[in-house]
């Protein structure tokens, strides 16, 4: 089966979702949006997805330039109209799944989308954490992704912790009374999961053709030892790729994240 890296990443993420997944999305979230829609069209028809965190059970014909725009809401069964509609379901864990990314990520799945450099005099001012600082704390199932697996993105020390992953590692989240934590990080080179004790990232699978050495070289922090031999990331099926290309994202909006 011929496929591209964006398709492998979407399919890999989609396969993590189930009929119990109750998700929503934030800004510039093309990869997870595609993954929710793909999962719902394949193995998880009961999956809940609120487009832009607003449009529940939306079924858009195509994905627009903004994953927070009303272009994503077509076919929804409910439009959430107030902040109460959303935040009570998020903090109350009626929703259970959130995916986010950042300009920097650390070994514990904490994320920076605020500044590069010092906060007061930044070298680069980024858009801001938005809902990350909230939802990283509230949701039990956190998924991370990155289309730029390099040492500038995967860093030992964040310049600013905008979004909470496993915090300082170990039982840090539990001590703060926060549920669950990051489950996976899907990158353009591999899939990371988290060591159950230290909560540091480790390689779960390598995308076809990628070596352990390549991943180590592209990662700015030390990885936890993997559990046994590292397998290859399972490839997408022809049917998954067809549905993604033809039904979920016919205009290729997801490629905005791969420029």
């Amino acid at each position, binding site marked *: 089966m011929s496929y591209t890296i964006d398709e492998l990443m979407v399919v890999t993420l989609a396969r993590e979702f189930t009929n119990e997944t109750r998700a929503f999305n934030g*800004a*510039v979230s*093309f990869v997870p949006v595609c993954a929710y829609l793909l999962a719902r069209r394949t193995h998880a028809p009961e999956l809940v997805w609120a487009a832009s965190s*607003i449009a529940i059970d939306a079924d858009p014909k195509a994905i*627009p*330039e*903004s*994953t*927070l*725009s*009303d*272009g994503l*809401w077509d076919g929804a069964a409910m*439009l959430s*109209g*107030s*902040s109460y509609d*959303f*935040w009570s379901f998020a*903090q109350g864990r009626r929703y259970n799944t959130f995916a986010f990314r950042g300009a920097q990520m650390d070994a514990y799945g904490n994320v920076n989308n*605020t500044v590069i450099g010092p*906060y007061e*005099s*930044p*070298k*680069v*001012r*980024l*858009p*801001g*954490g*938005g*809902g*990350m*600082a*909230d939802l*990283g*704390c*509230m949701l039990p199932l956190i998924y991370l992704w990155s289309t730029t697996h390099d040492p500038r993105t995967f860093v030992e020390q*964040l310049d*600013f*912790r*905008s*979004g*909470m992953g496993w*915090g*300082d590692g170990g039982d*840090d*989240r539990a001590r*703060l*009374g*926060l549920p669950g934590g990051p489950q996976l990080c899907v990158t353009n080179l591999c899939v990371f999961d988290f060591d159950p004790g230290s909560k540091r990232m480790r390689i779960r699978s390598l995308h076809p053709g990628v070596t352990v050495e390549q991943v180590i070289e592209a990662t700015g922090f030390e990885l936890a030892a993997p559990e046994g031999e590292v397998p290859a990331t399972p490839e997408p099926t022809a049917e998954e790729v067809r549905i993604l290309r033809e039904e979920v994202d016919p205009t290729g*909006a997801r490629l*905005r994240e791969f420029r």
Partner: protein
Amino acid sequence: MTGHESKLRTLEEAAELIPDGATIGIGGLSMNGAPMAFVRTLARRRVKDLTVVAVVAGIPIEWLVAAGCVRRVVSGLVSLEGFGLAPRFRAAVQAGQVEIDEYSEHTLICRLQAAAHRLPFVPTKAGLGTDMLKLHPETLRLEHDPATEEPFVACTPLPLDFGIVHATEASTRGNVRVDPKLIWMDGEVARAAATTIVTVERIVPEATFVAAPARTTYPRFTVDVVAEAPWGAYPTSSFPRYGYDGDFFRSYVAAHTSPEQAQQFWADRIDGPERHGAFLDANGGARTLLAIARRTS
């Protein structure tokens, strides 16, 4: 309905109310439903030293920063979404010309709710373990529940001098309808403000509200000023009547690859036109509006 005081003002009269140094909250959610006609009118006044509170916004902050109106931005997210980073905002922060007081969406909503309810704080789990709490030790206090010892964040009130939101229709008495009722954080912005200004697509008779009272969104005693601005959210959307103008955002971002082009774009398409209608004309007029209009059922 004679004898009642009219709250109807022009955009220009409404913008005149905002003094230098005011703290203003701006409604809308990213590409959706921002009171852009008011923002542009305010930017053209060159009011100074504003503190601008916007939970998730891009283009309103861009224009106010470009006009030199802003001292401090209080926000969770400032971007132009899939179109790119907010270029004026980013440059101004990096040059030290504008302060950014970053909150998260929910801590900001909680602070506005605390102001609206006149409570000492509203609690949330948001922000625990993040650096955002370190930025705001006084306004986002790490506390522990006395009974259970569970940690939480106490978000203190953020009162606004002015809250500005866009809506579908209003009467001159100040009853306001957002139809359908998608208000997101606008409810908090309107309620946390000492003075609430609402721009609307159209003015309708008071009888419209009496005929369908369950569909009134903001009651007249909470609305101070109403200004009519058809297509008043442009270039953001006003669901379901019109979508955002993707062409505008694409060309806005493209123009910011050079300072000369950016200045030209600002002068020709945003700051130059005096009245709201002239502004719409400068951005393609009827052709643009027909392109973004949605078929409604």
